[in-house]
């Protein structure tokens, strides 16, 4: 049987791209929230967490309002002759928006575990904030960050509601695995749905196994510290 594999590639490409963007945005936000100064922290925190608690269709609807041809960003894009609605970019945008809260929360949790004195000690020893970030903060919170990355990837991969609102369901272009499953079930192709569900199951299972593996081999120094 001729199963069109394009949903798999689109899904993997979308989830990977979204995860990479999520890592940067999520960690930057978490870093600012825990170690940075300035105002408006609560507001940003709430905004970032929102997609986690809102129904995905609501997220998709809001994104449609923003990126649509009358939306703030949509109008700007229209001026340069671009549009994201119903494009592959839209799948990345929605996947990123729903994955960021997971990355942000886990990274923030990991950063908050770091002893403030150690960071002050590093500064007194002459280290710049960037150096401290790469040399101390990231390595010490690596297990948490890896967990965040895996969760974000899984979430991006499974995104359905917001994607169908903003990106539509265009085979070969914006049709990811969850959309393909929906379409297959709707049109009575149970076998196809089974195959896709199996693939998703496999990917998700690997993600959970990978995450458990990482939590178990958390750095020795972190295990001992908790004693």
């Amino acid at each position, binding site marked *: 049987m001729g199963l069109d594999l394009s949903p798999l590639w689109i899904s993997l490409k979308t989830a990977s791209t979204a995860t990479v963007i999520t890592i940067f945005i999520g960690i930057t936000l978490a870093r600012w929230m825990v170690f940075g100064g300035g105002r408006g922290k609560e507001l940003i925190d709430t905004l970032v967490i929102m997609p986690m608690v809102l129904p995905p269709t609501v997220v998709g609807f809001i994104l449609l309002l923003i990126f649509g041809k009358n939306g703030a960003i949509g109008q700007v894009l229209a001026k340069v002759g671009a549009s994201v609605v119903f494009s592959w970019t839209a799948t990345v945008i929605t996947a990123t928006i729903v994955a960021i809260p997971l990355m942000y929360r886990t990274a923030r949790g990991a950063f908050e575990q770091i*002893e403030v*004195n*150690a960071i*002050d*000690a*590093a*500064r*007194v*020893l*002459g*280290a*710049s904030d960037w150096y401290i970030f790469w*040399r*101390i903060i990231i*390595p*010490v919170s690596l297990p948490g960050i890896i967990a965040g990355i895996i969760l974000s990837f899984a979430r991006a991969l499974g995104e359905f509601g917001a994607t169908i609102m903003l990106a539509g369901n265009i085979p070969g272009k914006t049709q990811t695995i969850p959309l393909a499953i929906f379409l297959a079930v709707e049109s009575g192709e149970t076998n196809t749905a089974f195959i896709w569900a199996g693939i998703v199951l496999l990917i998700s299972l690997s993600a959970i196994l990978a995450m458990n593996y990482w939590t178990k081999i958390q*750095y*020795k*120094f*972190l295990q*001992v*510290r908790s004693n």
Partner: protein
Amino acid sequence: MDLVVDIRKDYKDFNLKIEFQASKETMGILGASGSGKSMTLRSIAGIVSPDQGRIVLNGRTLFDSEKGINLPVQERRVGLLFQNYALFPNLTVKENIAFGIRKLPSRERLCRLGEKMASMQIGHLQDKYPYQLSGGEQQRTALARTLVTEPECILLDEPFSALDNHIRAQLEKELLDVFASFKGVTLFVTHNLEECYRVSKNILVMDEGKALSCGCRDEIFLNPPNVKTARLTGCKNISAIGRINADTVKAEEWSCNLEVDEQKIADSTHLGIREHHLTLVDDGKLPNTFPCRLSRVVETPFSVTCFLKMEGRGGMNQDYELQMEVSKEDFAVVRGRPFPWYVQIKPEHIFFMKE
């Protein structure tokens, strides 16, 4: 070698306003928790910025609110040792120590690193992680990490408060050896008065963000200038005084007249006597001797604190006026004696101070 500090910082419910100078001799900062000791150290290190004032280390201005100088933490050349040592958990002993000197040319870096690890006797631990070290080894690593940067001033924030007593004594000794060879200014923050006395030559006593007194440790302990300092240095017997004549004062809280050395009174408002300076005597006719009853005893391993009620005097509402400390052996001798016991407040042990 000197450090001049004159800073103030206002918070909603706490104001820090402190002024002192420290030189090569170790200065102990003594105070209860919340008195602003750590805040003072953090201001000097640059982790916290004061609102006003200045901090000058060996002629170098670290902070001056009027001139708008506020040197970044990284450029202050100050070493700060934390209570729990704050070693970097993901780095080995060697990497921890090298952290502050990574910008030096590799040759000098390795030279200093080897030297410091040898002098701290942690060379054999260089590839271990902090969690694999004992408390003493952690302290030595933290000290080495600080000293290797050759700071002009070392600030220690209650370095022993988290340790068991027997380890504490040993680490304290090691630390004193390090201080002896360190050429810069050392500030040592603690709330333990005995530790403070042992480690420092000069003592600054802090309370509620202000300096109560500052001076040579013996001066502070023998002649505290005010009541709060006397209390913080462990004096239990303090009374307000009223002048009767040239060499007699009335101790208000104890409702008794005391003969004293008139040279020492000056314009003092209070007097005090330390608990181990009260003496039991047989003869009730000696000067400043009062009949007392024992109302309570508190035992420590080698001494006994007796809470004494002065007969026919003293405040009505308390069950004791004086606290006297005697050794266990001495207490065993007197414990069976009938009351009253005669307690003498010797004039030479009385000190005077202001409110």
